[in-house]
C-alpha cells in the first residue's frame, strides 16, 4: 500500500479533470455566438476506490477514493424541445410563405383605387350612360370604345400577371427541392461520421449540433419526422417515406403534373400531395393549385399544351378549381362580356349597312332569349356563320394567326377578352356600336326596319347592367360578386398574416426555452472558470506537498546501515 505515489496519481487525475473542464469553458466561450451550438459540460465521476486495510490493532477494511474520472463531454440539449421546435418552424414556413404570396396577389388587383377592375367597369357603364343621352355623338361612341378597350386590357393584364405567379411558384418549388436534397445529403454524411465517432466511445457534440441545425432548416421547407437510432444515426421521414435511411439518401424529385408544364413533387417517382409536404413547399403548391388555381376549362387549349384538354380526355388533375382566382376571373369576364354582347347583338347600330340582325342566318334566336344571355355555343355558332351578328366583345384567342385555340371559342375568359374587330375598325367601327332597339324584321321579305339614330334602348340597357343581377341569382350584380371575391381574398390574407405572426411568437418562445438549456451565459462560464482554476491550483498544491513529503521520506533517510 503506497500512500505517497497513490496520492500523486489522485492529484494528477484532479489536474487533468480541471484542465478538461477549463478547456470546455474555453470552447463554450468561443462558440457562444455560433448558430445551433449547445453548451458542453464535462461529465466526471469518481474513479473506482481501493480497498485499504488498517494497520492498527483491529483489522478493518475501508474504501479509499480513487480520484476523479472524466467520462464524457456532453452537450446540454433538450431533444423533445427540438422536435417541438421543428413542428412549429414547419407551420411558420407555411404561413409566412402563404402570407407573402397572398399579399403579392392582392397588390395585382390595385384595389381600392381608380386603376382596379372595379373602377374601370364603373367608368364603362358611365360611358354607355353618356352614349344613351346622346347616341348620335361620335365623341360619346369613341369614349365607349376607349373604355371598353380599358376593360379588356385590365382583365387581360390581371389574368396574365396572376398566371405568371403560378410559374414563379413553380420555380420557387424547384429551388426549395434542390435545397432539401442538399440537406438530405448533408445529414447522411453527418450520420456516417457521427456513428463512426460513437463506436470509438465519444460524443461527437459539434457534429450532432450541426445535424440538428440542418434538420431544423429542412423543417421550414417540408414537414419531417425524425427517429434517432442507438448507433447515433438519425432517420428522417416525410409522411412515412424515408428521406434519410441511416446511410442512404432518398432524394425528392419533380415529375410533370397533369398540367404538363407544371411540376409535382415526387418521391421514388410517385407524387406527394401538398398537404403531406407541409412547410414552405405546401404553401407554394397550395398557392399555385388551389388559391390561384387553373383557368376555366372552357378556355384551355385543345393542343398538347399547358393544362390543355383534348376532347374525351380524362380530367383527373385538370378539373376546374372553382374556388381559384383564375377560374373566378374567367367566369366574371365571360358573364360580363356575354351580357353586353347579347344586348348589343339585338340592338341597332348607327350605321346599319352590313348589319346582320340575329335570326336564321346566324343561328341565333330571332328575339332575345328570356334567360338573358347567349351561351358560348350560340356565340361560337354565330361567329362561324357567314352573316355574323354584331358583338362588342370578342375572344382574342380566335383571331386568325393564333396557334392556340380555346376549347370553347364562344367562352370569353379573362385572358382572351378583347374588343371585336368590327368595333375596333376606325370611324366605321364607332358607328357599328349598337345603341338603338332591335330592328323589326319582316318575316316574309326578310328586310329589317331600323329605329332612328336617337333611339337609345340598347345603350340604356347596357348601362343598366351595373345593377342587373347576373350569375343566375336574384340579386347578385357584377359588382357584388367582384367585391365578395376580393373580400374573400382579403380574409385569406388577413388569416395567414395572423397565423404567421402567431407562429413567429411561438418560435421566439421556444427559442428562449432552448437558450435556457443550451445557451452560453458568460457570467456562468466565468465563475466556472474561477472554480476550475482553484481546483487546478489545489491539485497542483497537493502534488507540491506530496513531493515535499516524499522527498523527506526518500532523501531524508540516511543511506546504508
Amino acid at each position, binding site marked *: 500500500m503506497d500512500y505517497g505515489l497513490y496520492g500523486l496519481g489522485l492529484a494528477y487525475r484532479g489536474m487533468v479533470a480541471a484542465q478538461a473542464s477549463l478547456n470546455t469553458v474555453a470552447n463554450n466561450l468561443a462558440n*457562444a*455566438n455560433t448558430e445551433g451550438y449547445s453548451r458542453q459540460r464535462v461529465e466526471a465521476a469518481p474513479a473506482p476506490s481501493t480497498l485499504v486495510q488498517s494497520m492498527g490493532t483491529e483489522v478493518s477494511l475501508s474504501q479509499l477514493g480513487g480520484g476523479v474520472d472524466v467520462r464524457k463531454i456532453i452537450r446540454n440539449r433538450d431533444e423533445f424541445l427540438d422536435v417541438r421546435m421543428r413542428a412549429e418552424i414547419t407551420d411558420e414556413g407555411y404561413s409566412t410563405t402563404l402570407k407573402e404570396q*397572398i*399579399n403579392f396577389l*392582392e*397588390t395585382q*388587383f390595385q*384595389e*381600392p383605387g381608380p386603376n382596379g377592375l*372595379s*373602377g374601370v367597369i*364603373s*367608368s364603362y*357603364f*358611365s360611358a354607355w*350612360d*353618356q352614349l*344613351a*343621352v*346622346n*347616341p*348620335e355623338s361620335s365623341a360619346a361612341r369613341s369614349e365607349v370604345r376607349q373604355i371598353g378597350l380599358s376593360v379588356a386590357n385590365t382583365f387581360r393584364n390581371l389574368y396574365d400577371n396572376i398566371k405568371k405567379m403560378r410559374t414563379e411558384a413553380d420555380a420557387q418549388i424547384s429551388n426549395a427541392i434542390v435545397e432539401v436534397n442538399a440537406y438530405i445529403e448533408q445529414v447522411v454524411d453527418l450520420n456516417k461520421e457521427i456513428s463512426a465517432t460513437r463506436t470509438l466511445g465519444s460524443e461527437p457534440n459539434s457534429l450532432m449540433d450541426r445535424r440538428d441545425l440542418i434538420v431544423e432548416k429542412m423543417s421550414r421547407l417540408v414537414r419531417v419526422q425524425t427517429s434517432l437510432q442507438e448507433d447515433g444515426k438519425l432517420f428522417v421521414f416525410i409522411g412515412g417515406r424515408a428521406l434519410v435511411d441511416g446511410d442512404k439518401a432518398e432524394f425528392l424529385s419533380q415529375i410533370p403534373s397533369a398540367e404538363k408544364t407544371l411540376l409535382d413533387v415526387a418521391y421514388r417517382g410517385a407524387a406527394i400531395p401538398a398537404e403531406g409536404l407541409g412547410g414552405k413547399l405546401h404553401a407554394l403548391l397550395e398557392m399555385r393549385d388551389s388559391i390561384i388555381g387553373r383557368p376555366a376549362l372552357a378556355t384551355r387549349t385543345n393542343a398538347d399544351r399547358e393544362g390543355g384538354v383534348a376532347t374525351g380526355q380524362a380530367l383527373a388533375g385538370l378539373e376546374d378549381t372553382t374556388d381559384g382566382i383564375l377560374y373566378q376571373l374567367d367566369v366574371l369576364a365571360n358573364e360580363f362580356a356575354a351580357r353586353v354582347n347579347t344586348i348589343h347583338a339585338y340592338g341597332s347600330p348607327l350605321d346599319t349597312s352590313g348589319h346582320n340582325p340575329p335570326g336564321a342566318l346566324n343561328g341565333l334566336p330571332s328575339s332575345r332569349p328570356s334567360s338573358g344571355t347567349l351561351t358560348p355555343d350560340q356565340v361560337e355558332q354565330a361567329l362561324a356563320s357567314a352573316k355574323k351578328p354584331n358583338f362588342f366583345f370578342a375572344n382574342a384567342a380566335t383571331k386568325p394567326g393564333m396557334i392556340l385555340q380555346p376549347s370553347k371559342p364562344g367562352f370569353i375568359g379573362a385572358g382572351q377578352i378583347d374588343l371585336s374587330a368590327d368595333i375596333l375598325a376606325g370611324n366605321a367601327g364607332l358607328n357599328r356600336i349598337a345603341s338603338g332597339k332591335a330592328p323589326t324584321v319582316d318575316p316574309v321579305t326578310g328586310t329589317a*326596319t331600323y*329605329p*332612328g*339614330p*336617337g*333611339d*337609345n334602348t340598347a345603350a*340604356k340597357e347596357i*348601362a*343598366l347592367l*351595373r*345593377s342587373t343581377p347576373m350569375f343566375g341569382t336574384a340579386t347578385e350584380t357584377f*359588382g357584388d360578386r*367582384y*367585391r*365578395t371575391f*376580393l*373580400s*374573400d*381574398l*382579403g*380574409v*385569406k*390574407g*388577413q388569416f395567414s*398574416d395572423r397565423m404567421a405572426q402567431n407562429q413567429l411568437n411561438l418560435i*421566439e418562445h421556444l*427559442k428562449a426555452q432552448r*437558450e*435556457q*438549456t443550451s*445557451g*452560453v*451565459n*458568460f*457570467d456562468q462560464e*466565468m*465563475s466556472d472558470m474561477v472554480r476550475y482554476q482553484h481546483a487546478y491550483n489545489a491539485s497542483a498544491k497537493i502534488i507540491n506537498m506530496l513531493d515535499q513529503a516524499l522527498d523527506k521520506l526518500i532523501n531524508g533517510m540516511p543511506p546504508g546501515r
Partner: protein
Amino acid sequence: MRVTNRMITDNVFRNSSAHLERLATLQNQLASGRRIEKPSDDPTGINQIMLLDSVLKDQQQYSRNIDQVVTWLDTTDSALGDAANIVQRARDLAVQGASDTSSRESRQALAREVLQIRDQLRGVANTQLAGRYIFAGSQTVTEPYPDKKPTTAEGKSKLDSEDRLGVAIGPGLSIEYNQTGPDVFGKYVDSVDSIFEDLGDLANILSLSDDTTYGKISDLIGNIDARLTAINDARADVGGKRNRVELLASRYNNLEVALKDLKSSYQDADIPALISDFTLTQQVYQSSLAASAKIMQPTLMDFLR
C-alpha cells in the same frame, strides 16, 4: 430561470424590430392618408369602400344625365312657348278672316300672313339642340317637318317618329324627356292632320274669299284650338318633368356629399390619432433602446481582476 446573454440580445432585437415595424406602418399610413392599402388590411372595410365608390360614380352619372335632360326640357319649353304664341296668332287671323267685315283685300293680306306664320312655325317645329331635332322622336338627325314632303319609302319612314327618348336618372328610375312631333304638331307624312296642312288650308280659304268657305274656317278654327290644347298639354308635361328632375338634382347634390363623407370615414386615415400613436411609439422605442443598452453591456469579466 436560467438566462443567457443570447436571450437578452435576441430580446433587444425582437422588441426594437417590433417597434420599428409599427413605426413603418404608421408612417406609411400618414404619408398616403389611407387606412386601407390592400384587401387584407380590412376585408369588410374594402367591400364598403368599393361599394360606395361604385354608388358614387353612378350618382355622378345620374347627375350628369339630369343636366342634359334639363337643357333639353328647357329648349323644348321655350320652343313650345313660341309655338303656342304663333298658333294663337293664327287663330286670331282665322277669326278675323271669318268675320263678315273683312274685305277681299284684307283677307288676302291675312292669307299672306298665315303663310308666313306657317313658315315660322315650321322653324320652331324643326328646333335643334346640339345637332339633334327635338321633335323628331328617334330620328334625331332628320328634319321632322321639311318644306317638301319626301316621296320615297325610305324618306317617309324617317318622319313622324313617335319614339320616346328615355334616360336613367336614378337607380331603377328613368324619364322620357322628349315631346314627339305627331303629338304636338300632328302627323306629317301621308296625312292631312298636321297644323301645317291646317294653316295651308286657312291661307287658301282666305285668298279665295268664297262665301261658302266661311263654314270651313270655323272647322279650321276648331282644329287650331285642338292643336293649341295639344301644345299646352305638352308644355304642362315638360313643366312637370322639369320640376321633378330639379327636385331630384338638389337631392342628389346632398346625397353625393353624404356618400363622399361615408366613403372617407372608411378609407381615410385618422391623421390626429395616427400622429399621436406615432409619437407614443417613438417614445416607447427610445426607452426600450435605452434599457437595452444598460442591460447588454456588463458581464462578470468586467469585475474579475
